[in-house]
């Protein structure tokens, strides 16, 4: 009974805090403005707060990380929040910064104070700042990735044929061109909405769709080499897809990912990572299973045990172990998901190949949570949408190319069953009609004989909250992130049990409990060697000797939330024995016995 009352009280407190401190209106900021405000935050909360420069984007913009906590941050269990990951997701960066600001603003409240003493919080509000700046560009367009110049049409020149604002509305939208070879038709639901003709239903395509532009380099292709760059959320090692336009030549080819990788691996105290992206693994939990074959990516096969792999070091956790190596992590992860699922409000899409959230668990060994910062309330479907790649120009063939695959900006995705775009379209038409440009004819010089119309949903509008809903979505995300932050592990050591066995031999039994919800560490993190093992270090006095047990005891199996382990030591001799217990992801506790 006491517990439920406590829970209710803290929930109420959270709500109160949520509403009292959120005085400022939320809006989308340029990189310069946001950087300035991060520095202001650091100035204001100097003792609690550090600001790190963790690297630079392709365009030379500094990537910032806020560190919030007290004392020696690297010995405390930590949560890392990452935003600015999808090329057009500004809502995530707002929510991430919002969380940081309000934790700091509430840092004198008891509940938050305790959290900041036990744990450290890291926030990277804008991992890939380059594409987000296009929101504020004079001519707004939907960015594909960072500022890396590339040669997408392999003509030896970089970024030489990009978009053009033909109708001078400062927005790059779409052109639909009447063409018997076209694949698109108007939707029967709404004439303004475009979808691909379904041949099975006998529909015949009527339009070709391209991004607004002309053939700048007179090579027969339109917009085949716009400013592209790398989409950092496709550039991780998790299920990386090679030979794409925007995934990068190889995983971690972007400086943004390298900065993130070094930042995370240099902090073995970070146990949990939350990423703002378009995938929601809280409402659609992952099935964490080991790979079926050695080369297959984990999470895709059925639970066959994995053999092989060689042992590194003398430690008995080489690859020969059978059974599901993710089992402990999977259980921990599921139990926390159950607790936080009610606070996750925004459905998402299928996980991206090369996604950062996938990497954070499978290739960096941390509990990884992810969700969009905002989504349409009516959205039911979570099938894959939004594909911004243009079809590659055929070698030696001329094609009026440079068009999107769909799932974006008022175009239905390739997946016939998806209703995400139509939902978005209807919502925007009703609630933010300025974000939709009605199709209007344009006399296009490259198409003298075809009717061309310009229109569509404006860039950024499909995936970002309208500014006046930012406050609401940020508040919702605050509650979710707070729950995750609170679920980090906490080590408690009971009074050691000392039994005298005679002849100066004592048996000391330690009982170690994890009071938190997440496990003390992850088994996948141990296998990757990105996390340390849970250790008991024994310091003896002069003349004492450990008979059974070691001076350094490894507890390699994670201690689950609410779980308990016991360890016994037989010690000869009198004097004080100090035990230091824990690891960076669980925190440390010390106990002593006087023998």
């Amino acid at each position: 009974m006491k517990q439920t009352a406590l829970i209710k009280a803290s929930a109420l407190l959270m709500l109160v805090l949520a509403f009292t401190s959120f005085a400022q209106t939320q809006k989308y900021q340029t990189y310069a403005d946001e950087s300035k405000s991060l520095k202001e935050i650091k100035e204001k909360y100097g003792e609690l707060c550090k600001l790190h420069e963790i690297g630079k984007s392709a365009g030379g913009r500094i990537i910032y990380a806020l560190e919030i906590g007290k004392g020696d941050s690297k010995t405390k269990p930590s949560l890392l929040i990452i935003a600015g990951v999808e090329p057009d997701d500004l809502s995530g960066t707002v929510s991430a910064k919002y969380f940081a600001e309000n934790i700091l603003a509430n840092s004198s409240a008891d509940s938050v104070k305790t959290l900041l003493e036990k744990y450290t919080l890291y926030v990277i509000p804008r991992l890939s700042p380059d594409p987000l700046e296009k929101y504020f560009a004079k001519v707004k367009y939907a960015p594909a990735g960072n500022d890396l110049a590339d040669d997408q049409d392999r003509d030896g020149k970089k970024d030489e044929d990009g978009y053009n604002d033909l109708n001078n509305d400062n927005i790059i939208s779409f052109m639909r061109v009447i063409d018997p070879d076209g694949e698109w038709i108007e939707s029967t639901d709404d004439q303004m909405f475009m979808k691909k003709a379904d041949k099975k239903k006998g529909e015949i395509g009527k339009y070709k769709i391209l991004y607004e532009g002309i053939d700048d380099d007179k090579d027969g292709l339109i917009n085949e080499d716009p400013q592209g760059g790398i989409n950092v959320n496709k550039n991780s090692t998790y299920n990386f897809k090679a030979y794409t336009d925007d995934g990068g030549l190889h995983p971690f080819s972007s400086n943004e990912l390298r900065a993130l990788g070094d930042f995370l691996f240099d902090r073995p105290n970070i146990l949990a990572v939350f990423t703002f992206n378009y995938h929601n693994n809280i409402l659609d939990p992952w099935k964490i299973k080991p790979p079926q074959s050695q080369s297959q990516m984990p999470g895709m096969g059925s639970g066959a045990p994995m053999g092989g792999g060689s042992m590194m070091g003398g430690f008995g956790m080489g690859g020969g172990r059978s059974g599901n190596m993710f089992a402990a992590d999977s259980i921990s992860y599921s139990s926390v998901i159950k607790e936080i699922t009610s606070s996750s409000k925004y459905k998402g899409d299928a996980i991206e190949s090369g996604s950062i959230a996938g990497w954070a668990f499978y290739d960096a060994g941390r509990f990884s949570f992810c969700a969009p910062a905002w989504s349409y309330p009516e959205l039911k479907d979570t099938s894959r949408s939004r594909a911004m790649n243009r079809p590659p120009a055929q070698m030696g063939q001329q094609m009026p190319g440079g068009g999107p695959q769909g799932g974006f900006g008022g175009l239905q995705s390739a997946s016939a069953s998806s209703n995400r775009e139509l939902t978005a379209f209807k919502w925007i038409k009703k609630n933010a009609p300025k974000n939709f440009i009605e199709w209007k004819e344009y006399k296009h010089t490259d198409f003298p004989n075809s009717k061309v119309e310009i229109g569509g949903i404006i860039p950024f509008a499909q995936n970002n909250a309208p500014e006046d809903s930012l406050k609401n979505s940020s508040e919702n995300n605050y509650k979710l992130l707070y729950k995750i932050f609170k679920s980090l592990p906490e080590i408690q050591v009971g009074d050691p049990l000392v039994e005298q066995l005679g002849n100066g031999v004592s048996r000391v039994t330690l009982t170690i409990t994890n009071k938190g919800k997440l496990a003390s560490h992850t088994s996948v993190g141990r296998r990757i060697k990105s996390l340390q093992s849970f250790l008991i270090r024994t310091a003896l006095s002069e003349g004492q000797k450990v008979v059974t047990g070691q001076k350094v005891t490894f507890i390699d199996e994670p201690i689950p939330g609410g779980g308990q382990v016991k360890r016994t030591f037989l010690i000869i001799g009198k004097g004080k024995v100090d035990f230091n217990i824990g690891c960076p992801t669980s925190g440390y506790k010390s106990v002593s016995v006087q023998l």
Partner: protein
Amino acid sequence: MKIYLKYIFAFLLFLPVSTLFAQGSFEHSSLKAIGAPNNPKVQVSWNRFYDYNELTVILKKLNEAYPGLSKLESVGKTYEGREIWCIAITNFKTGKDSDKPAYYIDAAIHANEIQGVEVALYTAWFLLESYAQNDFVKNLLDSKTFYIIPVQSIDSREAFLHSPQAFRTGLVPRDDDGDGLIDEDGDEDLNGDGYITQMRIRVKGGRWKEDPDDKRILVRCQTDEEGEFELLGNEGIDNDDDGLLNEDGPGSYDPNRNWGWIWRPNYIQSGADRYPFSLPETKAVADFLLKHNNILASESYHNSGGMLLIGPDQNPEDILYQRDIQLLNYIGKIGEEILPAYKYINTYKGLYPTYGDETNWQYANLGILPFVNELWSSTNMYRKQAAPEDSRKEPYKFDKQLLFNESFLEWKEFNHPKYGKVEIGGFKKQVGRIPPSFLLEEECHRNMAFTLFNADQLPQVAIEEITKKPLGKDLFEITVSIRNNKPIPTKLDVDVMNRLSLSDKVTIKGTKVISGGIKLTRYLNEVYEQKYNPETINISRISGNSYVYVSWIVKGGKNITVEYNSEKGGKAVKQLK
């Protein structure tokens, strides 16, 4: 007078000898032994190993002696701050290094695979010193470029050469056992003999016993036999008192699993480290490769086993395309002749799957035709494969007969702080994977010969013929036939299929172009027209030993030239006379 003459005679006798001491070499007045260059400018012995300082001197001397044929640069720094040298070798008078098809060689990505460095250095030395004397080498350097990075993992190779250590990894600090301490418990040379060998302990009933014929050899006991030894592992103590011996030495990642093609984390591929190119050395070399698009084939030196390895390294990610495989087969088979006892093997099928290795990345992301050489085969000891029952004893026999007991350290007692009385002994690290001095030069020359053969298969493109057919009204049809004389195409299949590099370009100058395109065969008039920018016709590539035909319809023009330009296939120009 007589005494005078005596002194003069003596002086004359000693003159050549004193010249010898002054120069440090003999004058090559006697018959040249065929193989090595005659009277090289840079004197190098090829029966020994060179450390970082020494090989830096060799490279600098070679570059100074042949400034028109070589360029020396550092591609980056190792973790401990040493320069990763690359020597580019070509005849700069015939064109820039970047304008020619290039062959890339590197060695010692694994620190204990030391002899590849000497092979790479030998190759650089041989090419430069032989240019003026040997037509084959001259033609090679006039038309091709060699990029040679003799050592990748310099820091840990230095440790191999100058300390008792013998590890394969690098020196970037990593916590291998997860105790928060970094590199705190490695091997130690306990008995101070300069080597880290094995420890054994006398235990009644142990699973090992001494061979009755040769007490050095330990033999595993049969199920019912009672032995007297247990093996304890490498020489060392439990430095951090955690019950584990030597579990966290320096590094312990594998630099050859840190590359960007099908990289997998540690639980699938041990040693992969944090993420692709997280190590400074692999990143520096990768950046170099990315900047030099003209590299079309390569060789990486490892040891041991006597193998010429090709990918793919994992199944079912079969990335190798059919015609690329055929090329590798052709080159690999000849490699087996040049390198007797070496076997041409596919890594996955012949050995074990590996992920994130260098040569697969070179192939899949850069369109390079790669080989890995595992140097040194035990067959080299007696020029034949030992019978299975003899193979264990062969190194001991070789030590006795050819090395006069120098390579094996006799088992000697030692008082171990934890184990008590143990015995330390075993083979020195210079045997097993590394040739003895008298076989090192042979390794160098034969492996170099394989790479020169391989480089000689790189494309050789020439514009053979330009014809001009009048069409009336000052219009002409210009047809050009371009041939690649060598088996390797100007781009591999993997490159064409995945658009890794630019298309080859054929440009006509000195005239007004009306239309142009690719002529599909020599005989028929079928032209595949390129509608846009016909002055430069794009062709996907020129296959091995094949022609490509391009034709234009032009107006006028007196001085017509045709240029061929390829990222990896080199350049060619011809004027219409």
